[in-house]
């Protein structure tokens, strides 16, 4: 379980995270919603240790990642995989090598095993053999997301952080990616934390939903709870009402 306690971070005098408290339950899919620029990605980057907070703790099974250094931080990071918004695929490597990369760098597995596992993961995210030798700049947005998902899965992480996994994709591809997340989650049982503002699609796969607004979590519950939430800010966001943008 990941427990976030009073997490705060200021950029140029602006409090992006202002005392976040949240618990992400093991083996579940938790989704953080909120309008663009509200700090959802910043929160994810704190959870994996890419950013350090001004104040607060992120406790992963009793260990505070915000204070971990060296080998302890490395050990904590080994438990995660992170799916970046743009995929963050290595543009000098073809798809196959991108997916195999964590195994080549972090394990001493024999080549045959690396090839077999990589092919398995590519098949899991429904990528054909023809894609294997293509470079990231030859792929569509949806394919990039799927390659990134395969690269995340091959690390067999306990926790996967998804930073807007369907942004910029058309509706069929959005559904495909959400379906793949749901399917792989069922197969592998990882804890998923997804940052998204794709309403209502995200309610279909979430176990819990949290809404981030003005640096704080203003609502948390099951998708049904969130949809019944009386807080007008939550309702305006879910309904996509334009006046929300003016606040």
């Amino acid at each position: 379980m990941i427990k976030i306690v009073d997490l705060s971070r200021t950029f140029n005098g602006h409090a992006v995270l202002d005392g976040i408290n949240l618990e992400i339950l093991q083996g579940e899919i938790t989704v953080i919603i909120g309008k663009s620029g509200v700090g959802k990605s910043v929160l994810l980057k704190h959870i994996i240790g890419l950013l350090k907070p001004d104040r607060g703790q992120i406790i992963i099974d009793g260990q505070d990642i915000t204070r971990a250094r060296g080998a302890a931080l490395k050990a904590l990071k080994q438990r995660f995989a992170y799916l970046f918004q743009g995929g963050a695929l290595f543009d000098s490597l073809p798809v196959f090598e991108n997916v195999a990369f964590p195994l080549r760098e972090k394990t001493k597995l024999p080549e045959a095993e690396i090839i077999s596992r990589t092919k398995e993961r590519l098949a899991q995210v429904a990528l054909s053999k023809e894609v294997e030798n293509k470079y990231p700049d030859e792929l569509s947005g949806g394919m990039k997301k799927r390659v990134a998902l395969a690269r995340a899965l091959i690390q067999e992480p306990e926790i996967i952080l998804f930073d807007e996994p369907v942004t910029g994709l058309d509706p069929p591809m959005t559904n495909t990616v959400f379906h793949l997340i749901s399917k792989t989650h069922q197969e592998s049982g990882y804890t998923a934390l997804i940052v998204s503002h794709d309403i209502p699609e995200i309610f279909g796969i979430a176990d819990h939903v949290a809404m981030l607004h003005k640096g704080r979590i203003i609502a948390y519950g099951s998708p049904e709870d969130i949809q019944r939430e009386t807080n007008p800010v939550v309702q305006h966001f879910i309904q996509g009402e334009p006046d929300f943008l003016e606040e």
Partner: protein
Amino acid sequence: MVDLIRQLGRRTLGLVQEAGRMQLFLLEALGLFFIPPYRPRSIIKQLQFIGVKSSSIILLTGAFTGMVLGLQGFYTLRKYGSEGALGSAVALSLVRELGPVLTALMVSGRAGSAITAEIGIMRITEQIDALDTMAINPMQYVVMPKIIAGLLAVPLLTAIFDVIGIWGGYLVGVVLLGVSSGSYFSGMVQSVESLDVNGGIVKSLVFGLTIMLVACYKGYYTARGAEGVSRATTQTVVLSAVLVLGWDYILTSFFM
């Protein structure tokens, strides 16, 4: 007036912060020299990029520099009736000074700027963050092979520059202007000492480290998209050139 002082103070603080951050970057890189893995394949790939691919430009500039030295040296020395010292003048100028400096400036323009752009694009497309999230040290994976390759390639390129420059001077001085081949080489053998050669090697090592450090640092801390990459690339070339010339003065004063 107060605004002016405030602005001056802010810029000074910014410069001091930048210098401090660069030194921390250097210290981290130096620390990683002693921590495996060393990634020999990446080092060889970088040696090919920094060294082999720079060799044609080094051959060209080395040849022309030697030819100009031959020409200038011949007409200057002739005034004193010392054309026989042309070989030593060309060799000493190249080995002590022009070889290391011009090689470093060429490498920084060709490879340094490209390295900054490569790392900068990795930074803005979150590839460096991706390495970090995989618990792979981006400094070790991206930066170290380039620094090690730069430290190996720049002295070797300098040696090539020196040799080609000496033959360029020979072509102009001996073949075209009629200086005796024997005096060209014997003067060189008598005047060039091991201190001169060692000084050139030390300079090229320091320049190689400086160029790679600046190129990697500027790329590593690139921000603000394509414009940021463009700015970082320009800064790499300018800062490398200034630092190379500054180091050159300091090191020359040690080896005189």
